[in-house]
């Protein structure tokens, strides 16, 4: 009996070892584009950001429109309950912010006395693309060099929570690198049990999470804030968990940003 097997493709020993021409062309093209981008100080990135800006803005518009439509279908009882909860939360926060405002004013006055007052100027900006778009832990925001943003400027969320620094500035957009970028090392200060501040190095773990390794002798408490050591550096996060292993002379402090980076809509950038 004769059986017809499907013909194998023309995959010969010769073609197996041959690198396709198209692949070589693409690799060369990639190399040329990278060199052009470096030599022209990011002109290709700038062009891609110009293409992306209207897309990101229209995507945000569609997202908000859907949110509004869906909110109409929510249960009335749930909305009343949520309204009550939010009213209560607003009252509580108003009371708390009164105390915070006094402390902030006092802090500013003291810095001015010491001649270390910061410029204090910040620009509010909307987030166009957030970390879930890539694994890089970067934000794209809708202000750029024409708004006075400069590379290295600090970026803050609500309540002066420090979230990152400006990595690249284009005409109308800016790329922000988060402090929590995997492997990024940040100097921090954390409060110990006896009230003293302890300097340490935090390593970014992505998505607003950090890790610190400090000697076990330092007594740290969960729930305490972690600060940036710079003037006007702000709060970086809150201690979530302390891992102590009997075999290790160090303890691992895990902390995360108090802000949810995925639901954040606006950030402020310090103008230098």
């Amino acid at each position, binding site marked *: 009996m004769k059986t017809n097997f*499907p*013909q*194998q*493709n*023309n*995959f010969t020993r010769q*073609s*197996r070892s041959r690198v*396709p021409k*198209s*692949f070589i062309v*693409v*690799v060369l*093209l*990639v190399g040329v*584009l*990278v060199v052009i*981008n470096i030599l022209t100080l990011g002109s*290709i*990135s700038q062009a*891609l*950001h110009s*293409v*992306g800006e209207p*897309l*990101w803005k229209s*995507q945000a518009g569609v997202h908000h429109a859907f949110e509004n439509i869906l909110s109409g279908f929510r249960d009335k009882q749930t909305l009343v309950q949520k309204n009550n909860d939010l009213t209560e939360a607003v009252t509580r926060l108003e009371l708390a912010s009164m105390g915070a405002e006094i402390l902030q004013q006092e802090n500013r006055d003291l810095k001015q006395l010491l001649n270390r007052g910061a410029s204090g100027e910040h620009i509010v900006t909307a987030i166009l*693309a957030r970390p*879930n*778009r*890539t*694994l*890089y*832990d*970067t934000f*794209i925001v809708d202000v750029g060099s024409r708004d006075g943003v400069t590379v290295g400027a600090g970026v803050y969320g609500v309540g002066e929570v420090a979230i990152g620094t400006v*990595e*690249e500035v284009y005409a109308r957009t800016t*790329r922000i*690198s988060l402090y929590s*970028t*995997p*492997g*990024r*090392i940040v100097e921090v200060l954390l409060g110990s049990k006896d009230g003293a501040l302890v300097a340490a190095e935090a390593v970014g773990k992505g998505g607003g999470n950090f890790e610190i390794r400090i000697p076990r002798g330092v007594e740290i408490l969960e729930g305490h804030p972690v600060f940036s050591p710079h003037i006007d550096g702000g709060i970086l996060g809150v201690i979530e968990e302390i891992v102590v292993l009997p075999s290790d002379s160090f303890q691992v402090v895990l902390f995360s940003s108090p802000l949810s980076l995925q639901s954040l809509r606006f950030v402020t950038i310090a103008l230098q």
Partner: protein
Amino acid sequence: MIQRVFFTILFFLSAFLFPWYITIFLGIVLLAVAPGYEVILGGLVLDFIYGAVVPSFFTSPFSFTLFFALLYSISYVVKGRLVFYKDAQR
């Protein structure tokens, strides 16, 4: 051909609009329906838009370009060993 154009457009749009895992999925689909060397350029687009120096990714701001180049190479070898791919589709 229509499939290739459709998935190429979708792939490049996803680089701007969708999370990274959807872009990677569309890149794999594109590699399955066409030779798919466009995915390397797509990786470069992702890196040009979002790329930053990430110490955990070997300090390279071109991680997606390298990843898609590797993916393309793997798909080229795999397609060569499958009977239902003609040489033209590799």
